[in-house]
């Protein structure tokens, strides 16, 4: 790419950034809040909105620098410009996307950081203290997201190793899914852990916004308005569609009736799994990725979760964690240098094992890192502030007890 500002690329990235913002607020907020009990609808929405605010500020104070600053031993970026100091004034172009402004690249990346943390909230809804969440967000962003994002995207050791993560299968879905698992193991199960959505209509709108916004998430990760963005958009859509159909099929085979929540879950599974692979695979691979990941995810939430007994309220691990792993492995299987010439080698289908090995190393290390550090953060917060609300607050609902507000008023 020539380092000259391209207005087409800039326009597409502005739109993509707005699309990804739409995924968190209100996409995730609506999707999650429809799935929980009515007494917690506002608290659940609030978790997404407040997370977006906190990350928005931290990202430009020091987050962007620590991820994309000059690499220190493959572990972290250098903090050259705290508070994004001087970058807007200089009108510099982004080093990693030299046809768009650095500021645009930075805010696009900010939206990924925000949605990653917001995704975790789906696991801990209906029982975690809001005040503790307010502290969990910056700690997790600093200690988990920022290092992992640097390792994969900021030129850190995993990137140097040859691992690829196009739009966040490892950085976003795996890291948040595993963190969700660690946090719910510390939090414990809810008094009523049934999944009986109080308003599936919200979830339909939320999932629709997620699917729509995902075009910015994935096709925006091409960082330019060209062939790669087009190919990415097509495989993203195909994987989501295949994921939806596979889950509907599983519902039909296992319970006799297709469910709408199942269909939405399958679509999100397909979207999450194609995310790391979206810029590297063709349509046939996308069909397989969407279809297979949905079936794996179905068994993770319907069989593995009850078997192990953890209370991942809205299946953040079962959907995002599991699909992040499968999609990232799929890069090592289906990637084609013909789709994206940044690949140093293709996947298994091109006869090369190298990519699958580096993907596996990345998955295992990021999963371990995210689990251990999230566990430590959770444990410290539990000992100091407490993770869980009072029993009475949980039974009566968090909206009225933590926020003095009601989602639904009788008169």
């Amino acid at each position: 790419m020539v380092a000259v500002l391209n207005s087409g690329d800039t326009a597409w990235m502005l739109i993509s950034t707005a699309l990804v913002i739409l995924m968190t607020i209100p996409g995730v907020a609506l999707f999650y809040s429809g799935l929980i009990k009515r007494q917690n609808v506002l608290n659940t929405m609030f978790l997404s909105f407040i997370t977006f605010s906190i990350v928005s500020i931290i990202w430009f104070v020091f987050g962007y620098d620590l991820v994309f600053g000059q690499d220190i031993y493959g572990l972290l970026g250098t903090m050259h410009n705290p508070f994004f100091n001087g970058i807007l004034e200089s009108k510099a172009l982004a080093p990693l996307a030299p046809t768009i402004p650095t500021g645009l690249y930075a805010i696009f990346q900010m939206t990924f950081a925000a949605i990653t943390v917001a995704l975790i909230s789906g696991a801990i809804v209906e029982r975690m203290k809001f005040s503790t969440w307010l502290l969990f967000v910056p700690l997790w962003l600093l200690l988990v997201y920022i290092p992992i994002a640097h390792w994969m995207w900021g030129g850190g050791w995993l990137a140097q190793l040859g691992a690829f993560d196009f739009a966040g299968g490892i950085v976003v879905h795996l890291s948040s899914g595993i963190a969700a698992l660690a946090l719910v193991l510390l939090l414990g199960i809810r008094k009523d852990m049934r999944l009986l959505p109080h308003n599936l209509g919200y979830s339909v709108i939320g999932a629709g916004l997620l699917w729509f916004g995902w075009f910015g998430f994935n096709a925006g990760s091409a960082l330019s308005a060209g062939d790669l963005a087009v190919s990415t958009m097509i495989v993203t859509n195909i994987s989501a569609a295949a994921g939806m159909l596979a889950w509907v099929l599983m519902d039909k085979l296992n319970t006799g009736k297709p469910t709408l929540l199942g269909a939405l879950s399958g679509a999100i599974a397909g979207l999450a799994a194609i995310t790391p692979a979206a810029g590297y695979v063709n349509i046939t691979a996308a069909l397989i990725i969407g279809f297979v990941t949905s079936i794996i995810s179905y068994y993770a939430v319907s069989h593995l979760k009850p078997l192990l007994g953890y209370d991942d309220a809205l299946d953040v691990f079962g959907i995002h964690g599991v699909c992040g792993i499968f999609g990232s492995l799929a890069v090592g299987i289906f990637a084609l240098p013909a789709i994206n010439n940044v690949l140093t080698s293709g996947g298994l289908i091109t006869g090369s094992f190298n990519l699958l090995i580096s993907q596996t190393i990345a998955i295992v290390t990021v999963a371990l890192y995210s689990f251990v550090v999230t566990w430590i953060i959770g444990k410290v917060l539990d000992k100091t502030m407490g993770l869980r609300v009072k029993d009475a607050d949980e039974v009566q609902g968090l909206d009225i007890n933590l926020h003095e507000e009601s989602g639904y008023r009788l008169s």
Partner: protein
Amino acid sequence: MKRIITIIRPDRLEAVKDALEKLGIHGMTVEDVKGRGRQLGITESYRGKDYNVDLLPKVRLEIVVKASDLDSVVNAILENAKTGDIGDGKIFISTIEEVIRIRTGERGKEAI
């Protein structure tokens, strides 16, 4: 005078209301309630897992009628609230000692 409390399916409310209207029975109190009968609710399935929902939404109607109207009102409810499936509801009948219209002070049948 008799008081009829009937618990019916929400989707049968309009038909029951229309039938009572044809009998000249206009006064009623209606509220949304949740409850269960002998079948202990239904089973819903989300993300491949079954959950029992044992309190289902129903509508409760309270109607006070003259004793002479009782049979026709009960028949109208039976005909219009029945689907034949589990969960059609119940009718409870009791005797009312006195009815007073607050606005006029009328008592008994005149106040119904």
